[in-house]
């Protein structure tokens, strides 16, 4: 790996070193004049402003040509700009770390993707995203299953009564039954949540769960006017299951999980 330790290794993490006139792009909005969003940009408060083409605008800040690591600090800066813009505009978020070499290149993006951006902005008009992660307490769920499931309770009693003589097989069987009951319980909780939120959201998307305690990692697309009802529903559900489940509820976000425009981009040399 010796060659990897060459001198340009650090360049990726130290913005500010070479300040060629790059543009960091946060999002695309509909706006036919320029606009300044203040000094809130990535890399320590760069000025955030628009590059316009026709009635579309890219929200950008100046940046050296670097690769931004997805550190919490950088990701939060990216998100903060989008949150600020979102207060007034419907937006299409760009992937974290998207850097163009020049204003001209940004304008070329708006021009070449004009129709797709316009269509998606129309579809996303007045819609916001919420994130909902649900984690469970395995021990408590197991306890509640052992309490409620007759077959499991009987088998468990049997094993405890005959501790010495209970077979390996009986224990295995118990383990399998509990495992299956847990999966069923998880599916039931998740289905219940989706069912409750169906009427107050436009769409939902389930992402891969993180770790072994999470049973749901979902994003919901919600009409701005339904924000309150969505909020209340989530609170209702979390109250109902507060003994067993932990809810991590975030947002409003730009529709990160519901915009899927494949941009035809290549590396700029």
């Amino acid at each position, binding site marked *: 790996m010796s060659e990897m330790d060459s001198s340009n290794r650090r360049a*990726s993490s130290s913005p500010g070193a070479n300040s060629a006139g790059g543009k960091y792009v946060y999002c695309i909005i509909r706006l036919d004049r320029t606009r300044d969003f203040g000094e809130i940009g990535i890399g320590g408060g760069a000025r955030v402003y628009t590059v316009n083409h026709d009635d579309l605008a890219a929200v950008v800040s100046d940046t050296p040509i670097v690769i931004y690591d997805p550190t919490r600090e950088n990701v939060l800066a990216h998100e903060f700009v989008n949150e600020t813009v979102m207060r007034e505009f419907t937006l299409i978020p760009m992937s974290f770390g998207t*850097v163009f070499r020049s204003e001209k*290149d940004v304008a070329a993006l708006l021009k070449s993707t004009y129709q797709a951006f316009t269509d998606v902005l129309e579809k996303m008009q007045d819609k916001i995203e919420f994130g909902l992660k649900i984690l469970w307490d395995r021990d408590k769920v197991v306890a509640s299953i052992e309490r409620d499931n007759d077959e499991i309770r009987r088998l468990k009693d049997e094993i405890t009564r005959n501790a010495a003589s209970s077979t390996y097989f009986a224990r295995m069987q118990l383990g399998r039954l509990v495992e299956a009951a847990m999966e069923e319980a998880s599916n039931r909780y998740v289905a219940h949540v989706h069912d409750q939120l169906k009427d107050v959201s436009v769409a939902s998307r389930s992402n891969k769960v993180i*770790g072994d305690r999470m049973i749901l990692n979902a994003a919901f697309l919600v009409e701005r006017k339904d924000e309150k009802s969505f909020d209340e529903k989530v609170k209702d559900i979390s109250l109902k299951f507060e003994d067993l489940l932990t809810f991590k509820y975030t947002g409003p976000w730009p529709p990160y999980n519901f915009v899927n425009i494949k941009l035809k*981009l290549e590396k700029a040399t």
Partner: protein
Amino acid sequence: MGLLTNILLAPFLGHVWGTQWTLEKIDRVVREELTDDTPIKEDLMALQLALEMGEIDDAEYVRREAQIMERLREVREWRERFGMSTAGGPVRVAGGEEEG
């Protein structure tokens, strides 16, 4: 191999061309492992969750985040060496030598 490969891969391999014959010996599996950032991203998400859930403190987060960033950079460098796409860095509209 030879001149043609050199020309075809030139934009990706650049100065590492000299070591190409050793790279070719690297097993496919190793290559995939070196260039796959999925598990690293999962680790990053798990770390963020741990912080949100109050399982680790800020200092611990920062320490482990630095390690994850280091791993991400290594994968990125390997991907560049193998001529694979990488996230980040300057981009432009494909095929667009847009004349102003």
